[in-house]
């Protein structure tokens, strides 16, 4: 299916390396078509309903005797295939024109090849049916990701980000390898079929160890706080189409892995697993959005929001695990639906936002929001799409982010009643934090959209910005449409999730979730709460005549004219007087001072009195507390210890002989 398509695309990209136009058209075109195939395949499968049997097969005859290339499409895999393919399709279309920005400067063929390869291995990861294939695809994902992140490798920032990304990816791979090996130890076979429910055969300690390892491993990939530090470094420096893929798809594969392992392999969960995931999710959500607020680099801001949304997804997942522990499969299914729904939602709006940001960055040549502004007039389409994305990610009705967060709230509220012990307080607290997260996200996107697209341009680059090229707009349009569809037809989406919940929790709940010909989403029953985005929109449309009628009746004679903005009687308003992104987030920075520990640096020069400064320089820095308190000290420690250890190899041959001699003596004394 789509797999060969990607392979062809990758090869094509390489083949036409020298002829960039052809390479771009070919590789991204093929990628789009293959993604479409994947999309159809996934939809076809998921449309089959809860009882759909999984598709299983061998990808290729085994080329290496000990590596099985078995693939399997089941509910979980198909859903993620859907996510991957949807985004792959949209972003490929977007890339057709986007990469024209690289013509003459960079090798577009290589970009296309790696892009295809990335989609290929990502797809492989979700359909792999064995440890070998999964791990190889997993590591390849990191490798191709690294190559794509390092695409503009001369910049030391990019290079460092690439290395950080790859090293963290490798640490996560190491954790996952160890986790899988623990499972392998119990099952004795590499295929996923033999791993299903293998947790029941393991000792409690090993099961917990495996869970912790998987949580760490997949958590790093997903960007869960505090393992997220690579994410805001790596995602922004990549070309924007790659950032979009990474932020919307790649980190989701971490979620896929966690879901696969926790629900499919590890057997019945232990009570603290769910709580751990839930708390990790909550912390990620809140901290992710708080750090996002402090950013004025547009793409970094979006990257931090990915952390936030992963947190929200994990809340659903964690609640599902906890419900499974308390033997509430129905509620587990509800939580899982919430998490998975948010997964595809986040993929679509984050992809959209990154594509929008890519268009902006391409036409302004900067990622710094303080140098943008006024783009709504210059790039109206992009602005519109970005606004849709912004509303969606802020979880505001009637868009899709709201729907999935609504489901998450429902799951969390149920958690309090359905579970026992004091730990159940975690549920409403997470709910409250989810509210905080949503509200802060709204703050952040008011800032992101307002500073980037509204008011006057803050630099010449922004003043001369041009609307994005056609295919880029089409790409964004596809995702905008996805956001809207996901928002307006939640019951259809829930039906697509049936095979997944059936597989992982043994329940399918789309029937209980949909109401009123599928236009209303219910929380398992009508009494427990309902919501309908279509209804809300209809309501708005129906109410719309009111202001117009008022206008017609009363204000017909009123005129509208353009005038300058109020400038307090000064001589005109300049962009310098506009509110900045840094200024915008200042209240938040002050409120959460204890967390951010902002460092400020003010320099004044004055002639006769400090109150009449001629120039003022103000710098403010935020450093992440985890980097500051954990990662940097850790790195320094490792390097220092390594330097110490280096003294072992100080050059003296006598010392070297002594090592051997002591080894020999020790072995003779102790080992015989």
């Amino acid at each position: 299916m789509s797999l060969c398509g990607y392979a062809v695309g990758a090869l094509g990209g390489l083949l036409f390396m020298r002829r960039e136009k052809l390479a771009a058209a070919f590789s991204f075109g093929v990628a789009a078509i293959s993604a479409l195939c994947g999309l159809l395949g996934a939809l076809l499968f998921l449309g089959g309903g809860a009882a759909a049997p999984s598709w299983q097969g061998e990808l290729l005859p085994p080329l290496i005797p000990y590596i099985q290339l078995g693939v399997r499409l089941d509910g979980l895999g198909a859903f993620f295939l859907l996510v991957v393919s949807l985004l792959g399709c949209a972003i490929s279309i977007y890339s057709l024109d986007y990469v024209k920005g690289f013509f003459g400067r960079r090798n577009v063929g290589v970009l296309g090849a790696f892009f295809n390869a990335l989609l290929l291995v990502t797809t492989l990861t979700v359909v792999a049916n064995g440890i070998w294939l999964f791990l190889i695809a997993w590591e390849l994902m990191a490798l191709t990701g690294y190559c794509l992140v390092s695409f503009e490798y001369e910049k030391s920032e990019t290079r460092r980000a690439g290395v950080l990304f790859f090293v963290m990816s490798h640490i996560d791979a190491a954790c996952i390898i160890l986790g899988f090996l623990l499972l392998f130890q119990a099952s004795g076979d590499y295929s996923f079929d033999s791993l299903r429910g293998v947790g029941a055969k393991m000792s409690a300690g090993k099961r917990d160890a495996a869970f912790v390892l998987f949580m760490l491993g997949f958590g790093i990939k997903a960007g869960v706080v505090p393992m997220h530090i690579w994410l805001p470094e790596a995602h922004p420096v990549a070309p924007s189409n790659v950032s979009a893929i990474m932020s919307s798809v790649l980190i989701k594969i971490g979620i896929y892995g966690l879901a696969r392992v926790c629900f499919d392999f590890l057997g019945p969960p232990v009570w603290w697993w769910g709580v751990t995931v839930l708390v990790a999710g909550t912390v990620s959500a809140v901290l992710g959005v708080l750090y996002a607020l402090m950013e004025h680099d547009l793409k970094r801001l979006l990257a931090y929001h990915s952390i936030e949304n992963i947190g929200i997804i994990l809340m659903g997942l964690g609640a599902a695990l906890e419900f499974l522990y308390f033997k509430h499969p129905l509620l587990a299914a509800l939580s899982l639906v919430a998490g998975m729904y948010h997964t595809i939602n986040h993929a679509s709006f984050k992809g959209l936002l990154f594509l929008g940001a890519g268009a902006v960055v391409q036409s302004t040549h900067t990622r710094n929001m303080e140098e943008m502004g006024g783009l709504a007039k210059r790039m109206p389409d992009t602005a519109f799409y970005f606004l849709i994305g912004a509303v969606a990610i802020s979880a505001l009705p009637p868009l899709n982010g709201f729907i999935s967060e609504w489901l998450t709230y429902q799951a969390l509220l149920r958690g309090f009643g359905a579970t026992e012990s004091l730990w159940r307080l975690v549920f409403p607290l997470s709910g409250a934090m989810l509210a905080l997260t949503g509200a802060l996200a709204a703050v952040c996107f008011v800032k992101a959209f307002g500073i980037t697209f509204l008011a006057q341009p803050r630099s010449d680059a922004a003043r001369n910005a041009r609307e994005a090229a056609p295919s880029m707009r089409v790409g964004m349009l596809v995702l905008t449409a996805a956001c809207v569809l996901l928002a307006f037809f939640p019951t259809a989406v829930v039906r697509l999730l049936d095979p997944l919940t059936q597989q992982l929790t043994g329940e399918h709940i789309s029937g209980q979730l949909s109401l009123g010909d599928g236009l209303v989403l219910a929380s398992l029953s009508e009494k427990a709460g309902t919501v309908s985005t279509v209804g809300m929109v209809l309501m708005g449309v129906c109410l719309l005549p009111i202001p117009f009628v008022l206008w017609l009746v009363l204000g017909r004679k009123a005129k509208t004219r353009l005038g300058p903005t109020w400038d307090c009687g000064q001589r005109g308003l300049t962009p310098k007087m506009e509110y900045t992104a840094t200024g915008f987030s200042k209240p938040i920075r002050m409120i959460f001072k204890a967390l951010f520990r902002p460092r400020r640096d003010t320099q004044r020069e004055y002639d006769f009195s400090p109150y009449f400064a001629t120039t003022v320089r103000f710098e403010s820095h935020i450093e992440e507390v985890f980097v500051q308190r954990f990662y940097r000290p850790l790195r320094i420690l490792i390097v220092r210890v390594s330097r110490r250890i280096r003294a072992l190899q100080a050059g003296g041959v006598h010392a070297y002989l002594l090592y051997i001699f002591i080894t020999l003596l020790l072995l003779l004394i102790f080992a015989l």
Partner: protein
Amino acid sequence: MLLTLLVLVPLLASVLCWLVCKRAVLERLNLLAFAIVAVLAVCLSAQVLNHGAVEVFGGVLRADALSALVADLTAFVALACGVYAVGYLREEERAGKISARLVRRYYVLTPIFVGAMMAVPLVNNLGLMWVAIESTTLASVLLVRFYNQKSSLEAAWKYIIIGGAGIALALFGTVLIYFSAAQVIGEHAENGFNWSVLITVADKCQPAAMKLAFVLILVGYGTKAGLAPMHTWKPDAYAEAPVPSAALLAAAFINCAVYGIMRFSMLASKCLGHQYPGNLLVLFGVASILVAAPFVLVQRNFRRLLAYSSIDHAGIMVAALGFGGKLGALGAVLHMVFHAVAKPLLFFCAGNVQQHYGTPYLRKVTGVIRTLPWTGGLFLLGAFAVIGVPPFSLFQSEFMTLSAGFAAGRVWPSALIVVGIVTIFAGFLAHMSKLNLGQPAPDAVRGSESPWKLGAMLLVAVPVIVLGFVLPGPLYELMHRAAQMIGDAQ
């Protein structure tokens, strides 16, 4: 016949090289010899695959799957290094770093080195195996001392003294093995020192002597393989030897030493059960990986960086052997093969960089992919291969090794190996990224690789890439049989 020729052809080439002094003839003689050896090695493997173990001279020379495999690898590395050496030495001579006399010395010594290495897996007699390994050391010492510099002299001295001490212990171990078996095989058996005979009676050998012997062998041949803490000579020797010789040391010689350990561990396992030798092997393997890691992290010289990587890989091979079982044996053999295929590429690229920039210090080199595009790209590729990133095959063997560790219930050593591998990965990646990517210095000149160098690099790079995706049937069969043999002894 094949077996004899495999050893004799390089030695003959050496003698011929000693007689002539024209560079073109020397080059051709070397290449010809290595090409013949490569062909012969492949023929030998085919023969072993079809007919099982091959013996000549009443079992003095003997080749089974494992020895055929090691011989193949040696031949492959020798050929690649031979091709590379032509380009490398020409450039060194042009740069005025070496004289024609030295070139000749290189071409005389290298075939001896290769011949001795070929002999290691092919001789059946353990005493002669020791002799062969010692001979490789002697030939390579002279190659390490190739450049008449203070530093190369220092490296050579450390190499031979440390190696000498180690090899003496190995000889002692070998003697003790013979002693432990002497009762069983009788006093006057002329072939009593043959491995193929010993393995049949190993389970009846005297265990106490076998234990001591194995400890001594492990320390002795471990020195040669570069297991920590006997590894200290490696960085010096690898960094000071001419690049093709260093590649031979790192990719081929290490196999010979590990081969020795494998043979003896089979004897020990059969005699003592696998627990005892397994423990020791895992101990040394894990120690090597962990010792190499910090040195990689804060390394300043990329040639030495490669040496620490090779210590790490020796550790992995030995640890895999120690984990044992079907998976462990296969892991060890796979790792040996994949490592030998990938390592020369790194050395070649490092050599190119060193020749182009005139320095082995990481600090002074950046942006190679711009100044030497082929080298830069392949350097990265090779680095990825060596640090165990898929699709390159070392990932497979490393994963197999870890599986073996878990299957054998040795969870903690496996976890430590993972820690070491990840640390080494981080260090390697950081260095390689700065070295290859990055903005070249403004005064950096764009260079190009000579066809010989490029050819050698491609000769290695192609299998590195291909092996990640396809493992040819016969090669796997050979490895599989070798692994089975090791596994059966346990």
